């Protein structure tokens, strides 16, 4: 670990007001980036999240109630997403555990048929610190997605955005071009790794149903309120400087019957505005690399 760069060694501090503004094509003000997360929760392990801890808070193994709660997302919730996005003609980025292709080929296959971008999201849903051979896990996950989709993913999101200090090196050498784990800016940035640069895209822990609904316990309609507030502000700022609104959703949370209408209303709201592009991560990456004139362009290869 001592041999690996700290975050500050990968990218210097930079105040956004000191940078030349990025501009989107055709006078667009803002990119709306939807990221759907599909996961596999191994029934043999502690569940990734819990909606209902056991009486007296005892650890539970197997944890059937919380496994089932997540499974609902794959059986039912995901199909609400597919319906919504196909109606809207939006093709989101899918951050998916590779094991989804093995355990839920019906769901992964639908995303593929609907033209969603597949983004690497580990083999299954464990913090990246806990996987024994990280390089092997990353390679395995990308190989599975490549076999399933015919294309090697260029984007990566750690489970729960987790990284160790060596993760960026391993991702760069595995062919990854952009990551979502660094939620530290409104704009894409380039970070250094020993194996070449990586682009960070502004993924989100703010407009994300896990922190909002599962960690902070907000009411369902707050996803709509917060997204409108975020959108309004970034749309206003997008007049002078390209902005990106990322929205991260999970089928077992936002795919619930009592929440889906707030997700639908988000798109009704933002689609009333001119100059909003529904792009996936690859489109944002390609635009950003084309916007830059310096050596970072080499990441594009």
């Amino acid at each position, binding site marked *: 670990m001592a041999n690996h760069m*700290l*975050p*500050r060694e990968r990218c210097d*501090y*930079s*105040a*956004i*007001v*000191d940078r030349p503004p990025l501009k989107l094509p055709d006078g667009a003000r803002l990119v709306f980036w939807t990221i759907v997360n599909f996961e596999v929760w191994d029934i043999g*392990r*502690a*569940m*990734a*999240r819990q909606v209902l801890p056991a009486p007296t808070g005892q650890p539970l193994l197997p944890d059937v109630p919380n496994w089932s709660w997540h499974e609902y997302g794959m059986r039912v919730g995901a199909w609400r997403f597919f319906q919504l996005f196909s109606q809207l003609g939006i093709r989101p980025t899918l951050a998916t555990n590779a094991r989804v292709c093995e355990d839920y080929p019906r769901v992964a296959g639908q995303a593929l048929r609907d033209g969603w971008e597949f983004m690497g999201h580990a083999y299954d*849903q*464990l*913090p990246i*610190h*806990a996987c024994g051979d990280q390089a092997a896990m990353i390679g395995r996950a990308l190989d599975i997605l490549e076999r399933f989709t015919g294309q090697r993913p260029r984007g990566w999101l*750690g*489970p*729960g*955005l*987790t*990284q*160790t*200090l060596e*993760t960026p090196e391993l991702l760069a050498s595995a062919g990854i071009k952009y990551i979502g*784990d*660094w*939620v*530290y*800016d*409104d704009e894409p940035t380039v970070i250094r790794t020993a194996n070449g640069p990586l682009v960070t895209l502004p993924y989100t*822990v*703010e*407009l*994300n149903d*896990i*922190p909002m609904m599962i*960690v*902070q*316990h*907000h009411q369902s309609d*707050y996803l709509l*309120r*917060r*997204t409108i*507030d*975020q959108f309004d*502000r*970034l749309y206003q*700022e997008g007049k002078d400087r390209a902005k990106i609104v990322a929205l991260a959703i999970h089928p077992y949370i936002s795919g619930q019957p009592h929440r889906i209408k707030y997700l639908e209303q988000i798109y009704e709201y933002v689609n009333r505005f001119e100059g909003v592009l529904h792009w996936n991560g690859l489109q944002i990456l390609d635009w950003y690399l084309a916007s830059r004139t310096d050596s970072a362009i080499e990441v594009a290869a």
Partner: protein
Amino acid sequence: MLPTERLSYSPILERPALKLPGGARMVVWVIVNVEEWDPTEPMPRTVITPPAGGSPSPDIPNWAWHEYGNRVGFWRLVEVFDALGIPAVLAINGCAIAAYPPIVEAALVRRWEFIGHGFTQRSMQKAADERDDIRRTATAIAAATGRRPRGWLGPGLTETWETPDLLIEEGYEYVCDWVLDDQPVWLRTRGGGIVNLPYTQECNDVAMMLIQHHKAAEYYDRAIDQFEQIHGDAAGGARVMALVVHPYIMGAAHRTKYFRRALEVIRSRSDVLFWTGEQIFDWYVAAAPAAQTAT
């Protein structure tokens, strides 16, 4: 010393009324907290927990979430202060001075007051050498601004039994850790009195958004409720209200407007002063000298 040895209990209604200049009823002061989080340590706060819990290190997502405040969020807050013509107090970690020069520069050109906020964002009870931490913070601020800080806020308001003594010995004049009154108070130390200014954990975005998980709009609602009550209370003597923000919380795009609206409403009242900490300190020391009150 125990807290009760530093000051005696005093009900606010039984004190001589404090008077502000120009017939103002109350003072509002606004504190912006700028921190640097060490990516090799556990994060001071988190917004996202890892799958299946635990606290694996390094914690890059929560480090990055905080860093957003200094790269992007801080500049939204600056815009609010500029637009409304309100002075801010910058409570800054000593180590953040070197990490974020553009933030230091922006605060300097606006003549914001700098106060010490620990050398790093860690409990003062974990500092290996507390005096050294307090001294290095003052040195870093003095080197960057040309003035030693007069005020101090512990990281997370933390203190040891000795903190007020060390602060006065190291040249600080006021502290903000004791949220026990609507007026400044004198605290006894082994080196004479130090003033405590009314800071807040109530109108504070860390407590409200990260601990209690309120909606962003609650910042506005609570600030206005707090303001109206204190404004009314101030008929019996001047009072002080604090508002606290952190760039990574109220500087998030979806929250800044609630902070701005609260300030807009308060600023529309003609009998309210927006002061820095040292303005409150200087006024209070003149109005209630230590000799009368600190016995």
